[in-house]
């Protein structure tokens, strides 16, 4: 099976794992979703930032697409995550570039060189990603940043895994929690990033980075569930 083929059939239940082909599908799906949400993310960022977040994310995920074409069959999930990280770092710019870049670099480190990811690995991946963002950006929960999507996602994924869920359910729980977390940024005053300059005026607006995080995790869940 080459990386660009769909699996013939997929096993069910918690024993299922996600391989490099899934990571590739997830990135492609993310690129599609971000392109479709480019203007929406720009608009969110225009309200409380500088209006480029959709632009930045789209540029980064478009840049990785051609690189996915030539992947060797033996490329591990971790290696693809690393490629994603370095591509985002060198194409996104702004705050989101280094933050997402660090996230996926740390995620890549966390999954090591395994050939496919089980639910535990996915939780480790997401935890490392979140920790990477905190390391670079120093944001705390409630600062109205992408962390407010990542942390609920990590927690929900971990709980699902602890409750015995498989990869699809873990990612679905994470995606749902990220969506909720993004939505929960609406009433907050920002304390990091450009939105922090607005004080009270940021209230009532969603954080664009939290929103893009929710989109990425939704794409992860969708592609994983399609695999199952």
């Amino acid at each position, binding site marked *: 099976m080459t990386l660009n083929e769909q699996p013939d059939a997929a096993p069910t239940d918690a024993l299922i794992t996600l391989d490099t082909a899934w990571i590739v599908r997830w990135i492609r799906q993310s690129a599609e979703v971000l392109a479709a949400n480019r203007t929406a993310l720009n608009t969110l960022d225009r309200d409380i930032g500088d209006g480029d977040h959709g632009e930045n994310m789209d540029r980064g995920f478009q840049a990785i697409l051609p690189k996915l074409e030539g992947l060797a069959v033996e490329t591990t999930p971790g290696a693809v995550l690393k490629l994603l990280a370095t591509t985002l770092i060198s194409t996104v710019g702004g705050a989101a570039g280094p933050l997402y870049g660090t996230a996926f670099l740390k995620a890549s480190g966390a999954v090591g060189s395994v050939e496919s990811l089980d639910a535990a690995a996915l939780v480790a991946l997401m935890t490392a990603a979140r920790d990477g963002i905190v390391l670079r950006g120093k944001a705390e929960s409630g600062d109205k940043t992408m962390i407010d999507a990542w942390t609920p996602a990590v927690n929900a994924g971990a709980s699902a895994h602890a409750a015995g869920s498989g990869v699809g359910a873990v990612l679905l729980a994470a995606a749902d929690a990220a969506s909720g977390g993004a939505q929960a940024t609406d009433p907050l005053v920002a304390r990091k990033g450009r939105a922090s300059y607005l004080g009270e*005026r940021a209230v009532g607006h969603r954080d664009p980075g939290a929103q893009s995080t929710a989109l990425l995790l939704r794409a992860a869940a969708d592609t994983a569930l399609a695999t199952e």
Partner: protein
Amino acid sequence: MVMKKLINDPKNVVNEAVAGFAEAHADIVRVSHDPIFIVRSDAPIHGKVGIVSGGGSGHEPLHGGFVGYGMLDAAVPGPVFTSPTPDPILAATQAVDGGAGVLHIVKNYTGDVLNFETAADLASAEGIEVRAVIINDDVAVKDSLYTAGRRGVAGTVLVEKITGAAAERGDDLDAVVAVAEKVNSRVRTMGVALTPCVVPHAGEPSFVLADDEIEIGIGIHGEPGRERIKLEPADAIVDRLLAPILEDLPFVSGDKVLLFVNGMGGTPQVELYIVFRRAAEVLKQQGITVTRSLVGNYTTSLEMAGTSISVLKLDDELTSLWDAPVQTAALRWGR
């Protein structure tokens, strides 16, 4: 509404502008197109500390217009209003490394700080000594635990000029860093916007102001500021901008200062000089002497109408570094 700009494709704005800049100023700069950065034509200069700045485009002449003798060794333009990535920053750092280390002058925005940080790490890994000074002169934003800190705005121009002169006279990296920090610690800025600007890839105004509203404390990317008020006479607006500047440092009677009235891009010169007139008058009333001045579009936000006022507390060292020869596309004297 159709976006009205002299551009071809929004995606090519920065590339084409940098290409034009390179053609127009071939006597002063060279340009690398991939990754994109602007560098002094005589770089690297052996034994001189290299100075690199950069950030989102749309603030021209900041920073490319300040590359040249006595100021920056290189400038790294990101997409419009978006920090450049580490790759071109690293390449620019390598291109200006003359063995005496490199200073990064970085405006305080999360994106700029993080991308320059990454580039510095990569450069250090290659054996280049890199130091960064973060510029945060904007008094409109409270520098507190609850914000990303003060923004770097027009005061950056003064840091770049004076620090560039220190490097040009042969100061070592520690000394150059100290000069940059000194200027940053003594300059305060506050701006006002009368109209927004349109980022080419967005095609829509970055914010909306009613016909009779102005934004006091605007950031250079159209970030909102302290308050939105009704349009007032220029003198009243100047007083609003100056008061928080003067009380912040504070500037006191007897101080000698450089007064810098910066245009945001769309404001005619007559208005900038009306602003200067009032600002100089207020300073004089407070016993503060304007011994140097700068008026013009130096840190812009595309075609935004508005201005910012910067006041820098001078001493003999800073004055003589300010007066030292400079030869860049946008600032030139003494040669």
